C-alpha cells in the first residue's frame, strides 16, 4: 500500500490543524455528533485514485477502477470537474482534502465533512454498515491478490467481471430483517386420493390397491416437485448464488466480498439527497454564522453557489436536499404543519403562518435519524415547496426531437421523483426458482412496473449468470405487455412466450 493513512495524517499543516480544530468545535456546538475524524491532504492524482476506489486508499485490482481513474483524470485535466472532498463512512472517519485548494475551500470542506460524518453515525440506514470498512477493503484487496497469484489474473479478473454484472442484485432492506430458521408451517396435509364411488364390496375391484398406491406415489412426487426453492421469491440474488451456486471456494469468496461491498455502499445511494443536503446545510451554517472571515465571503459564495446550482434537466441532490432541510426547519419553526395548517385555505395567512413553535432544529435532527431519500421526499416534498423551487417534469417529444417540459403538477413531479429513487431506478429482479422445471435451472423474474427491460443487456446478463449457476438460466419479464421468457443455456439465447 503506497498511500498510508498514518504517514499522511501528519501532513496537515499547522494552519489547517488549527482551522480543523476550530471547525470541529463549531460543529459540536451545533449538536453534530460524529466519530473522530481524520483529514489527509492529497494531490489531485491521489484524490482521483481514491475517488476511483470509491473513497478508499486500497482496493482489489480491477480495471474498472482504472477506467474510473482515467475518466476522473481526463475530466479534471479538461477542467470539467474537481473533487473538493471525500469522506469515508468508517470509525474513525477519514476525509480527504485537495492539496491545491484555497484555505476558505478547505474550511468549507471540513464543515461539509462533519455534516456527513454526523449523518453516517446517526442515520438509521447506516446503522448496519461495517464501520471498519477501511480494514475490510484492504483485506479484500489482499485476498484477491492472493487468488490472482494462485489462479491467475485472467481467471480472477473474468470472474470479477461477471460479478459486476450482477452486483446490483441485492436486497437493500435485508440487513434489517432478522431471519430465523423457521419451521415449515403446520404439518403437511395428508395426501388423499380420490376414489370412484362404489359400494364397499365392489371397492377392491373398482379402486384396486395397486392403482391407488401408484396414484399416491405420483401425487407425492408431484408435491415434491412443486416444493419451491427458494420458498419465497428472493431479491438478494447474490446471496442465493453464494449459497446455492456450484462455485469454487475462491469464487464464492470473491462473490461474498463483492456482495459485502455492495451492501456497504447501498445506504450512501439510499440517502444521497438527504446526506448531501445535510452536509451542505451544515457547511453553509457553520461558515456563514461562525467560521467565515470578511475576506473569504466572495470565494465562499462562489463555491457554495456552484455546489447548489440548478441544472434544468437534472436533479442536483445537493440543492434539493439543502432546500428541503431549510424548508423543514422553517416549517417546524413556524408551525406550518398539522391539521390547522393543512385545512387553512387562505393563501395569504398560510404563507405568513407563524405560531412561533421553534421546533425546527429538533425536527431536522430527528429527520436525519430515521429517513432515507424515498421517505424523506415522500414526507417533506410539499406542493408549496415544489412550486417555490420551480420543479417540473419533462418528457421526450418525438415530433420535435427534443426533451421538453411536460408539466409543473406537484403530484406528477413527486411521483416521478419517487419512481426514479425506487430501487435506485433499477428494475426489481427476484430469483423465484432454483430448480426450474425440476432440472436444476435458475429462474429469475422481473417485477414489471411499467417500463420494459433493456433486452440486449438482460440477455448478456443472463449469459454472465450462466458460468455462476452452470445450468441454463431464465428470465421472465414483460415485453410490450406480453409475457416473455428469455433463456441462456450455455451456448445460445432463446426466448418464448409465457402467459404473463
Amino acid at each position: 500500500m503506497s498511500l498510508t493513512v498514518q504517514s499522511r495524517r501528519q501532513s496537515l499543516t499547522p494552519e489547517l490543524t488549527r482551522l480543523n480544530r476550530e471547525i470541529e468545535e463549531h460543529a459540536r456546538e451545533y449538536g453534530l455528533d460524529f466519530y473522530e475524524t481524520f483529514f489527509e491532504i492529497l494531490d489531485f492524482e491521489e484524490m482521483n485514485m481514491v475517488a476511483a476506489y470509491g473513497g478508499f486508499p486500497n482496493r482489489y485490482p480491477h480495471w474498472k477502477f482504472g477506467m474510473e481513474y482515467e475518466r476522473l483524470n481526463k475530466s479534471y485535466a479538461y477542467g470539467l470537474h474537481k473533487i473538493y472532498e471525500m469522506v469515508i463512512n468508517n470509525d474513525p472517519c477519514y476525509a480527504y482534502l485537495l492539496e491545491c485548494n484555497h484555505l476558505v475551500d478547505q474550511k468549507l470542506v471540513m464543515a461539509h465533512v462533519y455534516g456527513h460524518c454526523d449523518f453516517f453515525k446517526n442515520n438509521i440506514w447506516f446503522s448496519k454498515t461495517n464501520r471498519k470498512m477501511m480494514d475490510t477493503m484492504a483485506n479484500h484487496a489482499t485476498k484477491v491478490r492472493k487468488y490472482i497469484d494462485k489462479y491467475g489474473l485472467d481467471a480472477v479478473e473474468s470472474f470479477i467481471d461477471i460479478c459486476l454484472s450482477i452486483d446490483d442484485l441485492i436486497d437493500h432492506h435485508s440487513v434489517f430483517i432478522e431471519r430465523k430458521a423457521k419451521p415449515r408451517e403446520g404439518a403437511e396435509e395428508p395426501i388423499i386420493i380420490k376414489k370412484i364411488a362404489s359400494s364397499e364390496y365392489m371397492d377392491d375391484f373398482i379402486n384396486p390397491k395397486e392403482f391407488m398406491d401408484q396414484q399416491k406415489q405420483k401425487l407425492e412426487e408431484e408435491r415434491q416437485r412443486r416444493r419451491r426453492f427458494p420458498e419465497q421469491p428472493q431479491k438478494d440474488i447474490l446471496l442465493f448464488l453464494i449459497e446455492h451456486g456450484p462455485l469454487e471456494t475462491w469464487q464464492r469468496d470473491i462473490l461474498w466480498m463483492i456482495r459485502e461491498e455492495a451492501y456497504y455502499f447501498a445506504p450512501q445511494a439510499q440517502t444521497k439527497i438527504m446526506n448531501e443536503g445535510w452536509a451542505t446545510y451544515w457547511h453553509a451554517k457553520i461558515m456563514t454564522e461562525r467560521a467565515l472571515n470578511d475576506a473569504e465571503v466572495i470565494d465562499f459564495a462562489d463555491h457554495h453557489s456552484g455546489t447548489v446550482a440548478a441544472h434544468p434537466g437534472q436533479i442536483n441532490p445537493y440543492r434539493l436536499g439543502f432546500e428541503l432541510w431549510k424548508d423543514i426547519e422553517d416549517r417546524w419553526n413556524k408551525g406550518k404543519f398539522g391539521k390547522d395548517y393543512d385545512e387553512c385555505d387562505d393563501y395569504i395567512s398560510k404563507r405568513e403562518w407563524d405560531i412561533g413553535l421553534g421546533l425546527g432544529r429538533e425536527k431536522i435532527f430527528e429527520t436525519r435519524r430515521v429517513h432515507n431519500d424515498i421517505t424523506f421526499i415522500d414526507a417533506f416534498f410539499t406542493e408549496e415547496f415544489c412550486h417555490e423551487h420551480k420543479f417540473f417534469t419533462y418528457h421526450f417529444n418525438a415530433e420535435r426531437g427534443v426533451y421538453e417540459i411536460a408539466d409543473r403538477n406537484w403530484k406528477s413531479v413527486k411521483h416521478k421523483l419517487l419512481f426514479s429513487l425506487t430501487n435506485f431506478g433499477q428494475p426489481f429482479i427476484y430469483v423465484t426458482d432454483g430448480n426450474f422445471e425440476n432440472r436444476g435451472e435458475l429462474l429469475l423474474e422481473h417485477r414489471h412496473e411499467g417500463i420494459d427491460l433493456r433486452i440486449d443487456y438482460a440477455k448478456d446478463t443472463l449469459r454472465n449468470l450462466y458460468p455462476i449457476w452452470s445450468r441454463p438460466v431464465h428470465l421472465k419479464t414483460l415485453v410490450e405487455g406480453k409475457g416473455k421468457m428469455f433463456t441462456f443455456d450455455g451456448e445460445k439465447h432463446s426466448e418464448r412466450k409465457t402467459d404473463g
Partner: protein
Amino acid sequence: MVLNIEQDYLRFRQIVRGRIKQDLKKYISQGELIGKKGKDFVSIPIPQIEMPNFRFGRRNTGGVGQGDGEPGTPLSPGDVDEDGAGQAGNAPGGHILEVDLTMEELAQILAEELELPRIQPKGSARLRTERDRYSQISKVGPESLRHFKRTYKEALKRQITAGTYDPLNPYIVPIHEDKRYLSWKTKQRPESNALILYMMDVSGSMGDEQKDIVRVESFWIDTWIQTNYNGVVTRYIIHDAVAQEVDAETFFHTRESGGTVISSAYELCLKIIDEEYPQDLWNIYIFHFSDGDNWSGGDTDRCINLLKTNLLPRVNLFGYGQVESTYGSGQFIRELENNIADADNLVTSRIENREDIYQSIKDFLGKGK
C-alpha cells in the same frame, strides 16, 4: 510515487485497445464516434465498457428537472441526463467513457485491424518544414517572455533556503537570478502533401441513409490518410446533372433531386487537379460515391474515357463506392469493372448497408499506393 491504481489503469488501457479491435467493425457501421478534439485527438465513446446488467430500456421516459419555463419549453440536450433521465438516486454504473487516442494510435489500430499496407509518401512531394515551439525554459530572455510561475517558484525556493520566507507574511521578491524565460526549440518535420477529393452523387435516388454511409466511410478514410501525410487537403464535389464544389457541411447534408451525369463531376475534378494540385507534388486520392444510376450509356462511356486517359494517370488511388439504392439500376460499377480491368489504382466497392462499410474501406485502402 507510483500509485496503486496505475496497474488497474494500464490493464484497462490494454483492454480498451483490444476492445477497439474487436468492436471496430461495429463502430464503423454504427457511426458512433467522431469528435475531433484539439489538434489531433479524437474522442471515442465506448458505451459498452460497462458490464451488462438488468436495467430499464427505453430511456425516453423523461424525468424531473428544476428551473424556469412553461410546459412545452424545450430543454437543451446537454441539460438532460439521458442515461438516467433525471435520476436523483445516484444509480451506480452508467459511465459513458471517452477514450482519447491520438490519431497516430488510432491509425495504428486501424492499420492492424484493417491489415492495410502503409501508403508511402511520394518522391518529390517530400518537403521539410521547420517549426519553432516554445517548449523550453531558459535563464535569459526578454521580459515579455518571462515565465511568471517558474520565476515565482525559484524565488520561493531561494527564500525558503535562505530562511527569509515567513508563511504568515508570504512576500516573495524575485531577484535577477530567479527569473526564468520561455524559450523555443526548432523542430524539423518531414511533410508531404495529399489531396483527398470526395465526390458524391446527390441525385434524387441518394437517400439520407446512403449519405450517412458515405459520411462514416469518408471519416475513416480521412482519419487514416491524415496520419500518413501532413497537410492533407480535403475537397468535396457534389453532382447530379451538374457538378459543383462545396464545403464539407454541404457535402454531407444536401439533398438535391435531379438526374445524374457523372462525367460532370469527373470533369470538375480534373479541372481542380490540373489547376491546383500538380501530381508531382501531391498524392491524390479520389473517392466517388454514387448509386450507380448514370443518366445515359453515352455519359458512362465518357466517364470511362476520362478516367482512362486523364484521371487515373494522375492519381494514387481512385475509389469508386457504389451505395445500394432502391431506385438505381447500379449499372455504372459493372461498366467500370468491364472496361477498365488493368488499372491497379482503380478500386471499386459495393456497399449494400452499414455493415459493409468496413469491408469497403478494406477494398479501397487494402491495396495501398
